[in-house]
């Protein structure tokens, strides 16, 4: 499968990370979104009229929605990551889109000079992070390791992680959100995990 990829976008990272977690080989085609604006080129718009990244291509099949890509990869490689029977999955994927529109937007404005109201985006993200922290804290008490009730991690973890792990780029802090920090570490230490710039890969596997 071919992934049209922008290295700095959380949505692209979600697909790269998930493919690594389930062992799906990807061929990456870098698209110079920043500063090159290649996603507005005729070539790219012919591939995805929405002009968004990532785009996943498998033969004649083209996906342009990053969450749909996660589901498709899960169905193909390991369906345990995609508990379609549980309505909570819809909620968490929606939460991830809300994070994209708040935390993700504030990050693009603050770090890459995109237009928009960073303070308003940040205020919305703050509310979301507080709520996810609350759910995670009570989840931990109930012995739930991941955001969904399942014992196995799900695409919801990946979808939410890629934004929260980059929250400092958006001027947000996890200092007073300890359950989120613990969950971030749990994802980082998952077998197959890969980092992107801004997220530290686990070091502790290297010993001397």
């Amino acid at each position, binding site marked *: 499968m071919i992934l049209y990829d922008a290295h700095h976008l959380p949505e692209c990272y979600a697909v790269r990370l998930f493919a690594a977690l389930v062992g799906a080989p990807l061929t990456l085609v870098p698209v110079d979104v920043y500063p090159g604006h290649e996603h507005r080129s005729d070539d790219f718009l012919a591939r995805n009229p929405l002009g968004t990244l990532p785009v996943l291509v498998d033969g004649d099949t083209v996906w342009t929605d990053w969450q749909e890509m996660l589901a498709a990869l899960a169905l193909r490689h390991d369906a345990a990551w995609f508990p379609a029977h549980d309505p909570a999955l819809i909620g968490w994927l929606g939460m991830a889109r809300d994070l994209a529109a708040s935390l993700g937007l504030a990050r693009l404005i603050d770090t890459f000079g995109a237009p928009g109201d960073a303070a308003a985006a940040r205020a919305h993200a703050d509310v979301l992070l507080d709520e996810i922290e*609350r759910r995670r*804290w*009570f989840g*931990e*008490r109930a012995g739930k390791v991941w955001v969904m009730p399942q014992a196995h991690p799900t695409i919801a973890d990946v979808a939410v992680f890629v934004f929260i792990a980059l929250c400092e780029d958006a001027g947000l802090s*996890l*200092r*007073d959100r*300890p359950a989120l*920090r*613990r969950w971030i*570490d749990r994802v980082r*230490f998952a077998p197959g995990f890969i980092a992107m710039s801004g997220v*530290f890969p*686990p*070091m*502790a596997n290297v*010993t*001397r």
Partner: protein
Amino acid sequence: MTNLATGVWYAIAADHDLVDGHVYRTVLGGHELAVWRAQSGTVQVWDDRCPHRGVRFSLGEVVGDDLRCQYHAWRFGPTGACTFIPAQPQMKVPGTIRARTWPVAQSGGLVWTGIDPAGPVPDLPPGTVARAIPIARPAAEVAAALVALEGLAPVVQPLDAGTTMVRAIATDGDVPRADRVLVALRRRLESAV
């Protein structure tokens, strides 16, 4: 810089905050702290700042009984002494290279520290440790508002001049109720500004 009393024990974390391999991060009276549990089980409270180049230790990782800084992977043992510098692996690390350590006590499900804390850690009633709630108001104001809360034995951690962390023991064990009460208190105090 600090509104911290000397000689006083402050609760800065709950036991459940310290999981294997993880560095918990908080701030006490303007002093940023990294809190972690070594493989041997001892709990460490350190300045959240690597003495080498000032990077927060809480970005790093626990490796066995060492804390490893994320920047240059310098390792520091439970006494705070630097044990290994990968850029100069043959060098015997000078004993003067140390992380600044804080006193530690564990009691009532909480981790305590302070500046020259004296005497025993405050005795809390039995119960369950509720979720710590940060409130963007000064400690004195938050403490005053906590007096009236039933079923909760609160302890206050001044984060900085304008922000306070409230930890509470739910004496009836009803942690969800304690959470609702503290979150409502947060909303009330923060909206009263």
